[in-house]
């Protein structure tokens, strides 16, 4: 190594040490890991934003791990802190008055928006979470029925950290497909579209055995940043059918109204296709749903189903149920005048030239939009046994 290169390398290394410094080194023990956040408006001053955060308390996790929950039971796994501010960012910084460690948002998994705030509009809230580098786009967005702070205070069995429990609740909605799972990125994506209305899951607190518990509930529908109304379970699945987001779930066919016996079909796979058409200036939308399922439960004590004709009758019944769900969803959406299905986008993609004329009038077109529903439902397998269990 010549003297020159030695000097250059030496200078570079020195610069590296001095220049980089320790500018954002914050050790893990100096960070307050936020698990989830609830957003309300302040009680006294309605203009203020009030945040309720769940901060993970690692010491509690440690004690419970080491001593079999002996000491850990005494300590709460999460620390609830609230702070108010003129905007979200202000409130976030105001936490430093209370928290000895700086809030760390990268592992925050849920944003729960209070009903009141949602009705007032979410535009102020979303900006911070999209703009700041710490929160993840994959954070679930939920709307509380009631106050978000109550959601943050409630507990979930099995999960030490309730916010992570909520996150898990949202991820398993595919089991029923009767609640939606919308993360920050998807939510923002829907806001960005001029005609599509955003929707997301609702969550509510209920009391059981003197304990406040949480459950997912109807789907919140927004219009122009504001909460417009709620879709119930059936309507929610109708929405998911159209969006092609039904992954699994149970279709309950009430076979005979008299004795209330059921045949349940498990959805194996489903897909949808939305095709808009313009005829003489009239727009019609065709929704094609194809679904496949297995027989999951059969309470009927006769073996008629396990014949081609029986399967056919089941398929027919199932088609009706699916159609009913979709119709319910469309009806509710048209009532709200919220295009949660993205029909406007579909028209735009297929007829970009015509869309320019329609776009401004979409508000008027959508409530009376004609939607044709075509459902192809199939039954593929009957489970491990073919005939119902009964004495021969």
């Amino acid at each position, binding site marked *: *190594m010549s003297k020159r290169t030695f000097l250059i390398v030496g200078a570079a290394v020195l610069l590296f040490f001095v220049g980089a410094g320790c500018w954002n080194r914050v*050790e893990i023990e100096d960070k307050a890991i936020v698990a989830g956040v609830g957003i309300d408006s302040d009680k006294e001053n309605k203009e203020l934003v009030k945040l309720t955060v769940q901060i993970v308390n690692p010491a509690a996790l440690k004690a419970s791990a080491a001593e079999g929950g002996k000491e850990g039971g005494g300590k709460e796994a999460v620390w609830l802190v609230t702070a108010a501010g003129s905007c979200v960012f202000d409130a976030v910084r105001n936490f430093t008055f209370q928290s000895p460690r700086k809030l760390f948002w990268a592992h925050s998994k849920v944003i729960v928006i209070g009903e009141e705030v949602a009705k007032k509009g979410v535009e102020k809230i979303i900006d911070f979470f999209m703009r700041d580098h710490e929160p993840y786009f994959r954070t679930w967005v939920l709307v509380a029925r009631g106050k978000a702070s109550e959601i943050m205070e409630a507990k979930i069995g099995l999960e030490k950290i309730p916010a992570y429990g909520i996150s898990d609740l949202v991820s398993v909605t595919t089991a029923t497909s009767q609640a939606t799972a919308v993360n920050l990125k998807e939510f923002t994506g829907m806001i960005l579209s001029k005609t599509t209305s955003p929707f997301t899951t609702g969550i509510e607190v209920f009391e059981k055995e003197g304990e406040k518990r949480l459950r997912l509930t109807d789907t919140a529908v927004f219009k122009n940043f504001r909460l417009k109304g709620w879709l119930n379970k059936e309507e929610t699945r109708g929405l998911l059918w159209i969006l092609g987001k039904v992954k699994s779930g149970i279709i309950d066919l009430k076979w005979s109204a008299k004795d209330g016996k059921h045949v349940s079909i498990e959805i194996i796979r489903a897909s949808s296709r939305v095709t808009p058409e313009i005829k003489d200036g009239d727009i019609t939308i065709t929704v094609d749903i194809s679904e496949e399922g297995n027989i999951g439960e059969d309470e009927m004590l006769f073996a008629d189903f396990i014949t081609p004709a029986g399967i056919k009758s089941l398929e027919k019944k199932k088609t009706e149920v699916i159609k009913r769900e979709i119709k319910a969803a469309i009806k509710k959406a048209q009532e709200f005048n919220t295009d949660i299905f993205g029909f406007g986008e579909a028209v735009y993609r297929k007829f970009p030239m015509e869309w320019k004329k329609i776009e401004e009038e979409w508000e008027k077109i959508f409530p009376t939009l004609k939607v044709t529903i075509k459902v192809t439902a199939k039954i593929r397998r009957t489970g491990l046994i073919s005939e119902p269990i009964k004495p021969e």
Partner: protein
Amino acid sequence: MLRRLLRKIKFFMQRNFENNKPLSSNQLKTSLSKKLNTNLENIKNILNHSSDVAIRLFDIGSDNKSRAAIAFIDGLVDKSTINEYIMKSLMLDSRTALPTPLTGKKDMLGIIKKNILTAAELREVKTFEELIYGMLSGEVVLIVDGYDTAFIIGAKGWESRGVQEPNTETVVRGPREGFTENLRTNTAMLRRRLKSPNLVFEHLKIGRVTNTDVCIVYIRGITNIKIVQELRRRLNRIDIDGILESGYIEQLIEDAPFSIFPTIGNTERPDKVAAKLLEGRVAVLTDGSPMALTLPYLFMEGIQSSEDYYSRTWFSTIVRWIRIAALIITILLPPLYIAGQSYHQEMIPTVLLLTMAAAKEGIPFPVFIETLLMGISFEMLKEAGVRMPRPIGHAISIVGALVLGEAAVNAGVVSAPAVIVTAITGIAGFIIPTHNDSFPILRLVFAILAAIAGLFGLLLGIVFLLIHLVSLRSFGIPYLSPIAPGIIQDLKDTAIRAPLWAMYKRPRAINRKNPVRLGADEPSQPPEDKEKDG
């Protein structure tokens, strides 16, 4: 008082210097005289009357009128050979030997050489230089009165370690033989594996005082002769008083003495050397050391083991992957841990982060200091384990494991993940023994970089490391070949170990001439089923 002491010390110093002049070369260059006594005196003087010089005078011939003497260094010769094939022949058989019994002074030397001495190795010398070096190498000198020519008779035989299984490179499948400290034994072990006239042992003497025998080994026709020439040039350039181990030679001839990576390989296994010779490499054997040097040495050889070729392809390939994973883990795990904990908490999966945070709660040190502490303790433990006598070694490992593992965590001095990281790192480091001495250095440097600038610093360090690695060469061969420069054909023996039948050419990086080592490029198959046609 002090002055008196100083004077005394001076006096002793002067006395010590009295007889401390080295032998002048003139003294050695002189020829033998015809008088036996003069010659023997000379030998004694040159060897400084050392106590291990043995001289035996005796009479030969039927008339007992000729005097002769043998001289040798006690301990370097095989006494039974001397008794049986030298002394007995000269003193008894010479009287009756046919066709010409040894009588009078009629060309006695010729008769001794042709008729009497039954030793296999024999040569004539005329100067003291050859005579003395012969003796020092363990040969026996025979001088007959009246002749200025001496016989050097080969009767080497000294105490040495037998052929044992090498401790450093044990295998499950494969030969158990390892090199010994004896050069001849080692060359014999190679010759036994490569029975070819093309196997060349080139002899050199290096070391002004030690006169160590060094052997260049290569296979004519397979080796790139330029590498041999370069090696010869570098070896001849060495001017040192002593070579005590092949490591001396390695350090004196290597390409990049400042690099932390070795550019010359070493091994204790003759089968490994034979395999490397067959690939076209050159080996250097050093007397007094069981470690053979092989060159050129490439980075990839670190993850190759002789057993890879003895086991079947699939297993060998998996083992290669494990070694590569270990290589990455042992260098990068501690820095990644530091970077993740100090800078990039968002990149750690949530549950893992919570576990880490829980473990870190109440630990007094930042993660870098913590990891450094554990790393240094581990290196100390390793060093202590090597240097300590074997029985104490166990005690150390128990204390080390208890203190490092249990107590430190329980006392809350270090966190459990740091102990796990250090343990995995240490174990992974042992998987690739050839590079193991460069790992702790890399680990330390990367850990510092990660502590200063997170993943950014770590990445910068890796880039510098790669720049350094690609700039290295071993005897003209790029160190990272066959990866950089890419030689597609040679990749068959890197991350995968292709089936032997598919490796029908020698590595192109080393050897471009005479590349074919295998006849057919296809696996063995059962013969075609004849009945199917008929």
